[in-house]
C-alpha cells in the first residue's frame, strides 16, 4: 500500500483524500455538528446561509450542515457493509466457479444471468417490500442485486488465472478446490477485486440514495443524503443549499471512489475497462 501511494498520481491521491474526508466527517459528525440533525425549529425554517447555519436550514428549521454531515453516516455504513458482503461472496464464488469450470459453473452463471436480467430497482423494491426498509434489509437487497455482477467480473478474471501454470501445478499436486481457490486464485485476482470494490461502492452509494429518494431507504426524520434531496428539492429555488449540500457530499464521495478505482487500476495493472480479460 505504501508503495502504491508513493508513486501514485495526483488524481489517485485526490480520490483517496475525497473518500477519507467523507468517511472522517461522517465518523466525526456527532461530535462536530453544531446542531442535532433531527431537532426541528419552526422559528428558523427555510433560512439561507448565516453565521449560525452555514448552509442554512430546511423546512423544519433543521441545520443543513449538521444534516449533511450526519447524512453520510447511514449511506457510508450501508455502502461499506453491502459492498463488502457482495464483493466477498462474489469474489469467492467467482473464483470457485471459474476454477471448477464444469456444470456448477454453468448453473451458477445461469442464475447469475437471470438475476442480472431483472432490473436492479425491481429486484431491490421486491426485497425491500418483502422485508421492510431497515438498514440490514437495504444491505441484503444490495447484496442480492450486486453479488451476481461481482461474481461475473471476478469469474472473468479468475478464469484466466485458473488456466495459469501455478494453478495447474496445484491441481497436479492433488490440492482440493478450497485451498486452490483461497491460496492460488484469490490472491491473484485481488487487484481486480479491489478495483471492483471501489467501483461497486460508488454504484451502491448512488443506488441507496435513489432508494431513499423513492422513499424506500432511510426513514424520515433521519438525516440521509438521498432523503434530504427528496425532502428539499421542491424548495430548490428557496434554499438551494439544502439540496446541493448533500448532493455535493454524495458526488464528491462517488468521484473519490471513481478516481481511486482508476488509480488502483492503473497502479495494479488492472485495466478497469477490461477487467476479466488478460
Amino acid at each position, binding site marked *: 500500500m505504501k508503495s502504491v501511494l508513493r*508513486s501514485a498520481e495526483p488524481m489517485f491521491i485526490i480520490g483517496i483524500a475525497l473518500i477519507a474526508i467523507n468517511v472522517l466527517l461522517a465518523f466525526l459528525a456527532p461530535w462536530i455538528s453544531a446542531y442535532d440533525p433531527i431537532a426541528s425549529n419552526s422559528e428558523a425554517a427555510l433560512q439561507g446561509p448565516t453565521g449560525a447555519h452555514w448552509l442554512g436550514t430546511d423546512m423544519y428549521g433543521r441545520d443543513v450542515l449538521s444534516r449533511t454531515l450526519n447524512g453520510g453516516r447511514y449511506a457510508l455504513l450501508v455502502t461499506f457493509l453491502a459492498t463488502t458482503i457482495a464483493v466477498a461472496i462474489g469474489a469467492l464464488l467467482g473464483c470457485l466457479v471459474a476454477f471448477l469450470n464444469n456444470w456448477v459453473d454453468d448453473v451458477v452463471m445461469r442464475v447469475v444471468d437471470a438475476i442480472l436480467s431483472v432490473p436492479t430497482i425491481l429486484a431491490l423494491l421486491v426485497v425491500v417490500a418483502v422485508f421492510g426498509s431497515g438498514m440490514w434489509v437495504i444491505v441484503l437487497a444490495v447484496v442480492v442485486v450486486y453479488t451476481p455482477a461481482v461474481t461475473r467480473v471476478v469469474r472473468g478474471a479468475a478464469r484466466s488465472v485458473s488456466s495459469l*501454470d*501455478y494453478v*495447474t*501445478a496445484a491441481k*497436479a*499436486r*492433488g490440492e482440493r478446490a478450497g485451498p486452490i481457490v483461497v491460496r492460488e486464485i484469490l490472491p*491473484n485476482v485481488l487487484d481486480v477485486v479491489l478495483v471492483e470494490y471501489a467501483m461497486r461502492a460508488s454504484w451502491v452509494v448512488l443506488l441507496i440514495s435513489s432508494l431513499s429518494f423513492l422513499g424506500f431507504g432511510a426513514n424520515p426524520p433521519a438525516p440521509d443524503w438521498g432523503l434530504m434531496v427528496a425532502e428539499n428539492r421542491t424548495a430548490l429555488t428557496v434554499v438551494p443549499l439544502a439540496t446541493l449540500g448533500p448532493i455535493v457530499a454524495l458526488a464528491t464521495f462517488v468521484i473519490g471512489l471513481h478516481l481511486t478505482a482508476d488509480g488502483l487500476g492503473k497502479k495494479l495493472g488492472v485495466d478497469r475497462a477490461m477487467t476479466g480479460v488478460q
Partner: protein
Amino acid sequence: MSIDASVSGPVQAPAPAGAAVSVENLSISYAAGDALVPVVQEVSFSIAAGQTFGLVGESGSGKSTVARTLLAQLRAGSKVMGGTVKVGAQEVFSLPAPRLRALRGGTVALVAQNAGQALTPSMRIGGQVHEALTSHGMAASRAQVLQALDQVRLPNVKDMARRYPHELSGGQQQRVSIAMAIVARPDVLVLDEPTTALDVVTQAAVLRLIKDLCQELQTATLIVSHDLGVVSGMADDVAVMRTGRILENQPTAALFTSPENEYTRELLRDVPKLRTRSAPAATAVPSEDEGPEDEAATSEVLVECKDVTISYNPGGPPAVDSVNLQIHRGETLAIVGESGSGKSTLAWTLAGLRGATSGTLRVEGGSAGRAGGDLGKPVANRSRELRRMVQLIFQNADTSLNPRRTVSAAIRRPLRLFGTVPRSQEKARVEELLTEVGLPASFGKRLPSQLSGGQRQRVGIARALAAGPDLIIADEITTALDVSVQADILELLAGLQRTHGLSTLFISHDLAVVADVADRVVVMKNGRMVEVGPVEAVLAGPNHPYSASLLASVIEPGDLDLPSALSEEQTWMDDPDGGWEEPGDGHRIRKWKDA
C-alpha cells in the same frame, strides 16, 4: 569481458558513402519516473543495398529498439539522446509527418515478430495488402494484391485474399506480413524476430523465402534475432548487442569462426548444437555418453504406455493416437514435435491433469518400496504416493509460480502436502532444496517477481524435487529462456537427475536441445509417434521423412546459408499396412509412403 573495450575498435564500422541505412552513435533512453534509463548506447552500423545486417542479443539488449528506429518508431516514453539514423539521405527523426508516412511502408518496411497480433483482426488479408499499396499512392489492382500473395508462396491466393487473419496458420500469417512489407517495393526491410513464433520447419521455409525476396528486390535488410542460427543463416554482417551496446560487429563467417568478444564466445558455447554433437557437448559429463552400459543399467522400466489414445471431444480426431512408449528408470526420454503434435497432451495425461480415452499408463513401484499405480486416472483419483511420484516442471517460469506467494511457500507446499519431511524440518528442507538448485537459501523470502527467469525456473525445479518424485516431466522448460540461462538450467537438471536417480520426460520442439540432454527421443506428429530411438541413432538416420525435415530445418550458428526450400506441406502418409522399420538398437521408424 570488458564493455569499455568494445566501444572502440572494430565495433564502429565507418559508414560507407551511399549506404542505404546508416546509424551513427545512436543513444536512446527511457524515462522511468524521474530517471532516464539508457536502453541504447552509441550504436553505429550501416547497411548497403542488397546487404543483410544481423543484430543478435538476448532479451533486453536493445536490439529491437534499434531496429525500429529505422522506421522512426520509439516506445512511448523513450527519447533519442544523441546520434542519427539515416535511411538513404534522410534523417528519419527529423522528417515532417507526410514524409514520415512515405518513409514508413514506402521506403522502410517492417516484418514484426508475431504476425498473429500484427495483422488487423477485423480486415481481410487482401484489404490489408491492398492498403499497403494505396497508402503510398500506388495504384493497386486486385491482380497486384494476388501477385504479392503469390510472391510469398501462399497457396490459393484468391481464396486467401478473402480470408481474415485468424483463419490462417502462423506461417501463412507471417507470409502475409511479408507480402504487406514488400508489396510497395521498399528499399529497406526490417525483420524483428520474424520467425520466433514459428515451428522449426516453418521457420526454415519462411526464412528461405525472405532471403530469396531480399535478394530479388535488392533491399537493405536488418534482421533482429535472439537466435544465433537464424542470424548466421541470413546475414552478411552480424553485430552482437548487450545492454544497449554493440559489442562486436563482423562479417558473419568471421564472427562465428573467430569471435573477438568474450560474451560472443560464451553465447556460442552455450548454444546447443546438433550436427557438431560428435564432439561431446561442453556440458556433457562423461558418464552420460556411455550409451550401451547406461542403457543396460537403467533398462528397468518405470513407466509403460500402451496404446494410449487421448481425445478432447468424443468423435473428434484424437490429440494423442495409439502411443506406445516406455520410460526407463534413470533415463531422459525426449518427445519432440511441433505445436499440436500431442506431446504436451501426453505429458499432462501422465501428470494426471487429463484422463486417457483408452489404453493403459502404468508406473512401476520399486526403488523406495513404493507401490506402482495406474497413471490413466486423473489426479483426483490417484493415491498420494502416486501423485508424488510424478512431478511437472512448466514451460513458463513466469506463470508457474504464484506471484503472491514467496519462494519458500511454493516449495514448502508439496513438502506439507506429501508429508515428505516432518513439519519441524520443513524450513531446513526448503533451504536444502534451494541450495541444491543453486540458489542462496535467503531467496526463500523473495516473491517470484524479485527473481530472474532462470532463477524462477530453478525454484520450479526445487518445487518438483520437494515431492521426492520418480519421474519429472519437463514441459518445454527452456523455451522462454535466453541461451546462456538455458544452458545452466539444462546442466542443473542433468546433474540432479544423476544424483537422485530420476527419470525425466523432456518435452521440446527444439531438436538441438533434445540432442544435448536426452538418452532417447520420440518424434511425434499429429498425435502419433513416427520415430523412436536412442539420440545418436536418430541423429544418424535413417529417418522418418518428418524427422528428416525437422533435422534439416535446424540452422546452427556458423551455417552461412539456409536449408534449401523445404515444403511445409506433408509429403508423406502412413503406410496403410502399418508396421515399423527397425534399424536396430531400439531405433524404430513408422512405415510411410509418399503422399
